Each structure stands twice: as C-alpha cells, then as structure tokens.
C-alpha cells in the first residue's frame, strides 16, 4: 500500500470514529411516539435497555442479529436507552461505540416515568428490559416485559411477521 492510501485510511478512520460516537440522539416522548405511530408496513422491534442493566446487555446481540437475519425484509430495530441523559457522553456513546452497535440507538430524555410510561405502553410496569414489536399498517402490537433468549426472540418475531 502506498503512503497516500495509508493517510487516506487513517483520515477515514478518524472521521468515522466521532461520527459513530455521536449517533445516539437524545429524544423526548413526542419524538418516540412519532416513531411508534409510523404508518408504514415496516415491523419495528423496539427494545428499551440501559447500560447498567445486565440482562439487557446480554440480549442486545440478539437484537443486533435481527439486522442481518432480516436484512431483506421490512424489519427495523430501534434501541431506546433508559440511561440518564447526563450519562450520554460518559457511558452511552462509549458503550455503543465499543460494542459496535449497528441498530439505531436513541436515549429517551424524560425524568418522571409516571408521566410517559403509559403513553409508550400500558402493559409496561417499568422493569427493564422491555420490548415492543409494532407494525402499524397491520395494526399489530406485542409487548414483552422480559429478558429474551435468542430462540425466544426469533420465535416471537417470526410469529409476529406471519
């Protein structure tokens, strides 16, 4: 490889790092609701997680896997971090970068769950992890307040897509 290519590669890598690290958007409830209510025939897999939640971290790769397994289908994964907004730069962005998460990650910047949780889903008691499967054009919606194993998640999504 000639030196110029090295330089180019290094520059590209340097440019990639900060752009990846800044992928986590802070959103408020109305933004999240907009996403949950999109009238498309895409199936959204929305996982509520946090960097401090061990079972959440354990199941994250299963959600990541969906991106490859269902690459040809209209399936989209959204990871909604429940970390405190103050932890965005300190914990969430480094975590997303370190794990190389490919799914879209957002951080829900709301303090009092009592004012917004029912608007996300009435079945959610507040325990993490929590997962929603939504397809608005088919008017289908499933809620899971539990930690998935990979076969369980595959089965739930398969059944939902049928």
């Amino acid at each position: 490889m000639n030196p110029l290519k090295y330089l180019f590669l290094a520059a590209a890598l340097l440019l990639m790092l900060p752009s990846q690290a800044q992928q986590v958007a802070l959103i408020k409830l109305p933004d999240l609701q907009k996403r949950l209510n999109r009238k498309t025939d895409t199936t959204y897999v929305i996982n509520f997680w946090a960097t401090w939640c061990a079972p959440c971290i354990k199941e994250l790769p299963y959600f990541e896997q969906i991106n490859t397994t269902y690459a040809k289908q209209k399936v989209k994964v959204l990871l909604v971090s429940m970390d405190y907004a103050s932890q965005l730069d300190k914990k969430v962005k480094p975590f997303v970068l370190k794990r190389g998460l490919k799914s879209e990650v957002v951080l829900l910047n709301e303090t009092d769950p009592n004012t917004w949780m029912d608007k996300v889903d009435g079945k959610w008691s507040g325990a993490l992890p929590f997962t929603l499967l939504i397809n608005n054009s088919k008017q289908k919606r499933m809620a899971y307040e539990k930690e998935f194993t990979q076969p369980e998640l595959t089965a739930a999504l398969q059944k939902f897509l049928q």
Partner: protein
Amino acid sequence: MKKLVPFLAACLLLVLSSYIRPLAGYQVGDKAADFKLKNVDGKMVSLADNKTTKGYIVVFTCNTCPYAQAYESRIIALHQKYASQGYPVVAINPNDPGMATGESFAAMQTRAKTKNYPFPYLVDETQQVAQTYGATRTPHLYVLTRQGTGNEFKVSYIGAIDDNSEDAKQVKIKYVENAMTEILAGKPASTSSTKAVGCGIKWRKA
C-alpha cells in the same frame, strides 16, 4: 398417543405459566397477604409480628441495581419519617442469587450493615412474595394499611418513590410522601398507583 397427553398437558402448563406472572399481583384496594421471610440477622419476620403498627411501607429492592442504590438513602429517610407515625419500612430482596451473585444472602448482610439499614432486609428465597404482590422491578414499593386491630392489611399505594430517580434534589413530586399524607389522614391516596423504571427482578430460570 398415551405419551402425547402428558406432553400436551406440559405444553399447556408452560403456555399458561408464561401468562400467569404478569396478570398476578395486587391492585390498590386489594387485601395483602402476610409473609414470613428471613431477615439479614437470621430471624424470621412477618407483618403480624408488630401489633402496634398502622401499616407498613413494603419495598422490593436489592443490592446491585443502580436504581435501588439511587433510592437507598431515600428509603431509609422514608423509614425515619414514617416508622414513628406507624408505618415502618420492610425491605425485601426478591432476586435469585443464582442469576446475580451480588444478590446473595451474605451480600445482603454486608449491604444492610454498610448502609446501616434501620429496617429489616428480608430474603424472598422462593420469590413467592414478589409474585404474590406483583412486584416486577427494584425498587417497587407498596404501602399497606392495617384494617382494624387485626392482622389484615389493605394495599393503599403501589409504585414509585418520587419523580426523579437520578437526583433527590431535583425531585418535584414525592409520590409516596404525598400518598402517606393522605393515608395518615385516613383518606385514600389521590395518586395511588405510579410507574417507575427499575431493574427487572431476576427470576429463577424454570
């Protein structure tokens, strides 16, 4: 065919059991069952032990959850404020230590000692109490009010401690304290059920 029947029965049971857990649990106004659980000092504790209380603030909490830790001193403050008014705190750890080693009985003893818990810290070994109450996360709080002079308790409040888990100084609404003010005045809590983010209870794998 003979083999199929128990298999189908097992399937049905499996399907049913996966539905039962979220449906179970108390609503405000329900009668709350007493329990007998081991405290960090090795003694067994039940609600009926203390005849003089007007009720209890029962909180499902644990050692390792950052939310439980964030609320720890506020739970201690609740006890200091309300034990003298007849509502002491009873803390219960529902997590299966097999799923998270930091939740072992020994770790509970250490936690209670380091943080000087002024209330019992009980281990829900079979997770039966958490399931009966319908606790799903830590911390998850229940205010129980004694009915008459007996050992019957009614659920008066379920939910969050306040509206800001991260920072006690930023709290605008103290859900439990507001409910307690009304309950102590003999009135039902106007906000009797609230939601909060928390660590899912580490249920034993079946």
